[in-house]
């Protein structure tokens, strides 16, 4: 029941925060466009007046990019460094935006106020940045320990059979995927706690997130399960639609842009749903045990 309530309340609160969802989408769209737009112009300029791009109507064609020669290398390096820069900038921006989001999905929050959203984002920026950084590092380490290192050992070993090596790698990935909600929960509880305990340190917030995740392991974990399933379904839909849809006109291209951006808005909504559900669980525990707030 608690899981159901958290999800139900979470979705209501997320829908109530639709304006913040749009803000987050818009900022991230601008961020990505900052490097994708020059990339598009570079690609336009690289192909110039050639008609070879017609071949892209049938799907990605590596040959036409490879024929660009040194220009292709420049485009690839521009793209990769662009993604890296977007990730780093996104990491910082996300810390700011989640500050606003965690504030807005709290109980008894009335009408959306942009001013309050950004104020909360600014207030929580540094602690949230720190929490995100620590938890991201933990996730990377988990990936190394559970997936990368076993893969390397299994691949190098002459005594482990291929089947054995395959199952070692798959087991590592499965365990990693099963465990991944835990650091995410820790980060979410830590941020929910920090939102209402502005003067406490980040370490205390992380400590709270850690202890609360394991104290309410079942309800927290199973609240995450349906959210993860929805996210996987959405991811699959995005990949399927985008890979299969090949517009041939400008109108079709515009429609593709609108549909894909709508799906991304929905992706952000799912994330806010997660924040709101976790916040609800956190608030419920405060009511049941006010001492917990003084962790």
């Amino acid at each position, binding site marked *: 029941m608690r899981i159901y309530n958290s999800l139900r309340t979470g979705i209501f609160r997320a829908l109530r925060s639709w304006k913040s969802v749009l803000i987050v989408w818009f900022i991230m769209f601008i961020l990505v466009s900052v490097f994708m737009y020059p990339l598009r112009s570079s690609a336009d300029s690289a192909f110039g007046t*050639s008609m070879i791009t017609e071949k892209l109507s049938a799907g990605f064609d590596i040959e036409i990019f490879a024929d660009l*020669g040194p220009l292709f290398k420049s485009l690839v390096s521009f793209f990769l460094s662009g993604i890296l820069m977007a990730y780093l900038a996104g990491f910082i921006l996300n810390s700011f935006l989640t500050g606003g989001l965690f504030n807005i999905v709290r109980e008894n929050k009335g009408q959306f106020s942009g001013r309050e959203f950004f104020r909360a984002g600014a207030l929580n920026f540094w602690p949230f940045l720190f929490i995100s950084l620590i938890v991201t590092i933990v996730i990377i380490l988990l990936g190394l320990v559970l997936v990368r290192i076993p893969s390397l050992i299994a691949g190098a070993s002459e005594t482990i059979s291929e089947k054995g090596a395959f199952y070692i790698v798959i087991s590592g990935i499965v365990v990693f995927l099963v465990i991944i909600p835990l650091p995410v929960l820790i980060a979410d509880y830590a941020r929910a706690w920090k939102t209402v305990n502005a003067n406490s340190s980040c370490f205390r917030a992380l400590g709270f997130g850690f202890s609360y995740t394991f104290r309410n392991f079942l309800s927290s974990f199973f609240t995450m399960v349906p959210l993860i399933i929805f996210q996987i379904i959405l991811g699959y839909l995005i990949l399927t639609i985008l890979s299969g849809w090949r517009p041939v006109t400008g109108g079709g291209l515009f429609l593709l842009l609108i549909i894909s951006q709508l799906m991304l808005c929905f992706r952000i909504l799912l994330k806010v749903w997660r924040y709101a559900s976790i916040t609800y669980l956190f608030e419920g525990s405060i009511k049941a045990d006010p001492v917990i707030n003084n962790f």
Partner: protein
Amino acid sequence: MRKTLISLACLFLIIQIVSPQIINKVPLSERITGYKINVTLDTDAKTVGGNLEAFWINKSSDTVPDIRMHLYMNAFRSNRTTFYKESGGSPGENEKDPGWIEIESFHDKNDVDLLPMMEFIRPDDGNSEDKTVIRVLLPEPALPGDTVFVKIDFVTKLPSAIRRTGYTDNYFFVAQWFPKFGVYEPAGMRYATSGGWNCHQFHANSEFYSNHSVYDVKIKVPESYVTGSGGQLISETLDGEMKTLVFRAEDIVDFAWTAWTDYASYNDKWRDVNIILLIPKERIKQVGRQFTAVKNALEYLDQNVGPYPWPHLTFVDPPSIGAGAGGMEYTTLFTSVSSYFMPDFLHIPELVTIHEFGHAYFMGMLASNEFEEPWLDEGVNSYWEERIMDHYYGKNSGVLDHRMLKIPDITYSRLSYVLSPSRQVISNNEYSWNYPHGTYSMMSYLKTATWLHTLEGIVGQETMNNIFRQYYKKWAFRHPSGRDFVNVVNEVVRIDHWDKFGPDMNWFFDQTLYGTGICDYKVSGIINRKYSKPAGKTESADTVITFWPHSDSLYTSTARLERAGEIMLPVDVLIHFTDGSELLESWDGKARYKDFKYTGYREIQWVKIDPDFKIRMDVNFNNNSMTKDPPKVPLHQLISKITTFVQYFLSVMLL
């Protein structure tokens, strides 16, 4: 009388070698050489030891004073061999566990000890540390028609896995393992101007040049080992903890075999060909796709080149511990690759299986000299591999068939060639060890395949098939040279197209096979000008103006084309006008530039050189077309999708 007796004894011995089992009722080749080998695999010492009886028939009109044999396994004897020097001199861990072959005794048919007459020679580089070729002076020179018969006791120490041979734990792949005759080339054969042995050292980038031979091979291995070879299994007998397998192979150029305890053996059939697949037991999921691939190759090459003449075929999918043995050919035995988990969209096992099987034709039957003309073996085979892959696994998805990304096999070879910074350093017509800057694979495999596709684009696929059918008919089970192949091309193109391409196709091969130039045609401009009245002239019956009454909408349009590379090939040029009409022009491609000019009530909208991408050698397809109104949607939809993926990626990665 004595000579007659000796001849009869010799004949008897040959019959003994040949007689145990006849696979092909009519010999496919001249069978100039034959081998009867009896060996035991010592799984602890990692050696294969025993004896070999072999013959060579002097079919030439020369008196030959000596014989030459390959002792390939000595390539792995030390890090000073020619093989290691060419490989960068870094044998890695193999230095601690070398491979070698020792000749313990060497006798002729009269039991004359030939060991004192044996010497190591280095015909290619004079490297005194290389012991991969021996010369044995015969007590009596071999007269025309004579048969030289030798008996050799030898021990081969297998190296830890290297270059498709050796062992890893209890896995053995035994290749390049026994003393093997070189090829005696009389004057007039291939490029020989006088008779002599063609017996090259073992190089980093070459493997085969041998006569088609008969092999009777008796192998003793521990009973628990599953064994496969290029021969047909004649018998298997148990002797305590050991078993003896007798194989026979006819008309093949090399004999290799493998033994491992954990092979699973599967059988299938294509027409009358029994196919055996040896594969690790745990890779059962790959069995179906491997058989399908080899049957596809059999079918396609049978249809378009010639029949596969042997009733047996064995192929091996080595385990990961023996992965180094993967992707190699021994005519009726070849090795592929796969793994326990191999996604269906990735056609790597199929590609390797089809490529290696193809060598049964290109080098196996059409036994060219891989040392001297590697393109005729690897390049021609790559061309057929690409045709087969793209035919059976999708025109656009021969290598990779995922909905997000498709890559045809034909693209892979072209890109490897056009993107290589060393694509012009040397021609295709070089000995395998002479390719500089790591260009061997790119030149022998990929450039060759690319110009063969280009040739197909010029003469058509059916003519290409006719060329290879004729090549097969004329040269199967013989030793064709590159020149022989070119002659077949000239002959068939003449029959199919008469003089459409000139008296012969040498102009093509001079540029592609023997040249180092690149091919690059480009559209350099489209010019549409409104027709203007000639100054000072009045309209009259003999001026063009009377012919074109609406001179205000009359245009002179020019499509400007250029040849940016050295290679000159005939190309199609498709010109599209604003009124929707199109003209397909032909350009012989010889001049450095060409203008196509038109006058009419229409402008040129776009121009495409080689609109069907037939000239695969063109190093840049992007400049082959030009338009007044570039198609932006296909590129922008791709960028738009990438934008969405990046946004999604960030959304997932950021907490």
